[in-house]
């Protein structure tokens, strides 16, 4: 078993089973770290809490909902303006957050009365919003407030409102993942099937495990609608509460982030027979095959192929321009749970980079199976990484760029390793054909940054070439390519707009229609 024990973790030898190096000839039967176990206290782990997984990842992207936390103010403050899940209703859920603001007297005497007042105040402040999600926190869980009872009463008094209750306090699980599970099951138990959605097409899907980071969902929605498919609901990016109550009416659940949302897909399969189809929205080949698969399911494969052909024709020359220059660049894929496997293979195949490490902050062994299956030989796979292990890995592997979160990215920055934001992206969206080129462009701009080059010069002792006034990225990158061949090709750098998403809103989709006889 190719386990790897970091030097900095020799004193906590149980960490050995949480990292493996994929050796030659290793496969999943010999090469898989443990996963989703309790965190070792004091390690400075990258993990967050279950409340985050429930409210911040899955709950709050729902756009037409008042998101109310039942607890002291911190949980609310922390999950407000700290992620980029957009919506096409001017980002209501982004801008407004609500808290019951529990104080000491509420802890002592209970806060159900406060909860009731808070719900009323929130609805009063936003009379046009009739939907609410209430999130339990550590405090309200520990004092045993019966949120469900309060909500039941209010919904009886105010029949025009609908309220969802998510009981996922921060300690409910080793990491964010515990929260994903809770909210998935809570939603399917409480809300799915309680609303009859409008069916606009013969081909209906739910798009699940997609959170519209920088517009990802809107890009994919465009492709589906061009094929004539109705995306009944998205769980939950740019998603609407009532649409999501109608999830039971879809023919197919198309699942992106299995880590956070496979639970609801599995339940819908059990309860309504709706099949679950896992896809990758990243990368030309995986995305093409994903659209094709969905197409085949509905007999729309030709429509799918048309979309694919249009997009590939437009964007491949630009992807290739970057791929030519990114060949051999070493990257660490260090996201939260699923991008390690969404990206591990295709980023190597289509951009030529070498994935030297994958990790997962809160994923399960299943995510590692997918990640290790897809990454190349020699890659270091880490479960539940912590600060010192990350630093040791960077020093050992010497990557050129790391895809991770803001804060670990700053650690990398100081170590002179460039970083791109794997959670909220730099200049995203990264899904879709154009998005993949934007990703390649960000990687290129990071790796061949003249400032990055300059950062390694020690002016007190290194030689300073005083004859240069500037360097361009191309001057830096093109020394290692066959410039003649490049010049003869159709390749070109990115020609898209800064904002490639807003223009999709309000587009018309002629294929999106329901045949009169279909049910």
């Amino acid at each position, binding site marked *: 078993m190719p386990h790897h024990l970091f030097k900095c973790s020799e004193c906590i030898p149980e960490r050995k089973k949480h990292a493996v190096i994929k050796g030659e000839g290793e496969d999943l039967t010999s090469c898989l770290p443990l996963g989703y176990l309790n965190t070792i206290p004091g390690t*400075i782990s990258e993990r967050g809490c279950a409340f985050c997984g429930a409210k911040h990842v899955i709950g709050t992207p729902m756009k037409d909902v008042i998101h109310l936390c039942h607890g002291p103010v911190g949980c609310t403050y922390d999950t407000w303006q700290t992620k980029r899940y957009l919506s096409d209703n001017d980002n209501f859920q982004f801008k*407004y957050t*609500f808290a019951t603001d529990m104080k000491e007297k509420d802890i002592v005497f209970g806060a159900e009365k406060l909860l009731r007042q808070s719900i009323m105040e929130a609805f009063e402040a936003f009379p046009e919003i009739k939907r609410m999600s209430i999130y339990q926190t550590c405090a309200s869980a520990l004092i045993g407030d019966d949120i469900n009872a309060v909500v039941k009463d209010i919904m009886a008094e105010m029949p025009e409102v609908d309220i969802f209750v998510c009981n996922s306090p921060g300690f409910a699980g080793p990491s964010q993942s515990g929260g994903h599970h809770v909210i998935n099951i809570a939603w399917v138990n409480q809300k799915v099937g309680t609303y009859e959605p409008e069916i606009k097409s013969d081909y209906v899907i739910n798009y699940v495990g997609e959170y519209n980071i920088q517009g990802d969902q809107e890009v994919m929605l465009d492709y589906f609608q061009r094929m004539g498919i109705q995306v009944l609901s998205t769980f939950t990016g740019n998603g609407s509460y009532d649409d999501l109550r109608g999830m039971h009416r879809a023919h197919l659940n198309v699942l992106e982030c299995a880590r956070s949302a496979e639970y609801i897909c599995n339940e819908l399969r059990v309860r309504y027979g709706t099949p679950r189809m896992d896809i990758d929205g990243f990368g030309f080949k995986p995305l093409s095959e994903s659209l094709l698969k969905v197409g085949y399911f509905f007999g729309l494969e030709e429509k799918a192929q048309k979309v694919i052909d249009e997009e590939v024709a437009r964007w491949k020359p630009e992807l290739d321009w970057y791929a030519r220059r990114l060949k051999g660049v070493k990257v660490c894929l260090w996201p939260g749970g699923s991008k390690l496997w969404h990206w591990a293979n295709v980023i190597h195949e289509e951009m030529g980079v070498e994935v030297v490490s994958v990790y997962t902050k809160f994923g399960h062994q299943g995510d590692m199976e997918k990640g290790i299956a897809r990454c190349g030989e020699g890659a270091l796979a880490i479960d539940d990484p912590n600060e010192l292990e990350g630093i040791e890995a960077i020093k050992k592997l010497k990557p050129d760029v790391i895809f991770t979160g803001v804060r670990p990215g700053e650690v990398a920055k100081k170590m002179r390793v460039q970083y791109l934001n794997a959670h909220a992206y730099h200049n995203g969206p990264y899904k879709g054909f154009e998005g993949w080129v934007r990703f390649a462009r960000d990687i290129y701009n990071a790796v061949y940054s003249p400032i990055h080059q300059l950062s390694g010069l020690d002016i007190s002792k290194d030689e300073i070439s005083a004859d240069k006034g500037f360097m361009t990225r191309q001057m830096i990158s093109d020394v290692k390519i066959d410039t003649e061949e490049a010049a003869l090709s159709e390749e070109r750098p990115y020609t898209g707009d800064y904002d490639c998403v807003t223009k999709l809103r309000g587009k018309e989709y002629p294929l999106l229609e329901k045949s009169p006889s279909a049910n």
Partner: protein
Amino acid sequence: MRSLPPNVIKEVNQFMTFKLKKKERNSIINPIFTCQPAGAQYASIGIDECIGIVHGGQGCVMFVRLLFAQHFKDNFLLASSSLHEDSAVMGGMHRVEQAVDVLLMRYPEVKVVPIISTCSTEIIGDDIDGVARKLNNGLLKEKYAEREVHLIPIHTPSFKGSMIYGYDTAVKDFITYFAELREPNGKINLITGWVNPGDVTALKHLLKEMDVDATVIFEIETFDSPLMPDGEAVSHGSTTIEDLKSTANAMGTIALNRYEGGQAARYLEKKFEVPAVIGPTPIGIRNTDTFLENVRRMTGKPIPQSLVRERGIAIDALTDLVHMFFADKKVAIYGNPDLVIGLAEFCLDLEMKPVLLMIGDENLEYLKDQRIKDLQEKVEDIDIIQNADFWVLENKIKNEEIELDLIMGHSKGRFISIDYDIPMLRVGFPVYDRAGYYRHPVMGYSGATWLAEEMANVLFTDMEYKKNKEWILNVW
């Protein structure tokens, strides 16, 4: 937040005939402050060789580290006891013990380990003082006998007070723990409060010009750390254990922010007879003058000509701005209480009209604050609201109860500025939607200049964007 005994409350009420408005709702819509543990964590990162353990769910530390990273664009070290379901039910003390052990094993330089409680661990009744004692007598003696380790329990449940009170409590707890009576050190203690590295630079500069030696609590200039060719730099605080110990031996303490360090100053006065001067926050010319005067009185050192000149440069810059651009401009200010008060006072000196001041928490001490009383009584048409949230401000704007030319506050209020088209100067904590603001002071004469010039530039950009007499800038 101290709860005052009834006879004192009566006394207070007799003195204070003013009341401070509170927001009328019970719940929060768009909070101005976060909770206590964030404040304790902000104090902790100012100390060298210190890594705090936040005893609670992982979010309590992960989100705060993210908040710091948003503000400083850098990473700071804080650990979690990783409270999971079983420990929430059965008690999490063993998690703290394990966290201390693991932390000490893997970070051999760490000497100071604050144990910061959260709402969950306070509710389940985990005795962090008890566990510190147990560790001191047990693990630290057995396994870490050769090492200097200081465990400091800090109680910061989120259902009391706010990040401000958490910071104040932590400063007091650090000082209480470390301050040690020895020979007088000839220095003053400067307890800065919740400030930026730029402020510390400005304050140290002023003291240097006066030839005054100070122990700065906390030395956070090193939060602004470089990207070095060898890749070895990190952001960290520089206050040492020696610094903290020596606070007992100073000739005096100046706590710049009453609500962020006042408790510690009063403790030093009571326990070690170190005279305490609390406030005012040195924002603007007048309050900086007062600060320097306080330093002069405390140390006997004169205010030098160089500072007269520096003050003059600030006055010169301000004079070009005030009656031309700032007169009668209506301002709303929100954020930390001392910051809000200091900015309001400065705005008044600048001929502006602060019309709305919002403090994000509630505190009986505000009723004893002469500064707030003066603002409320001597300024026409000013609204001061405690326990405020952003919905208070947004409502007033929506309902046209208020007209504003400028908003001053931290980045969480940005959507009000963006959606209602009101220019906003980012100031306070956190500021994450502007580049490099933590490097700049709001204190001292350089801070006064920076504030005024940034206010002006923000107003100018807005004028041009709205084509509102933008031609006036041709000949200014």
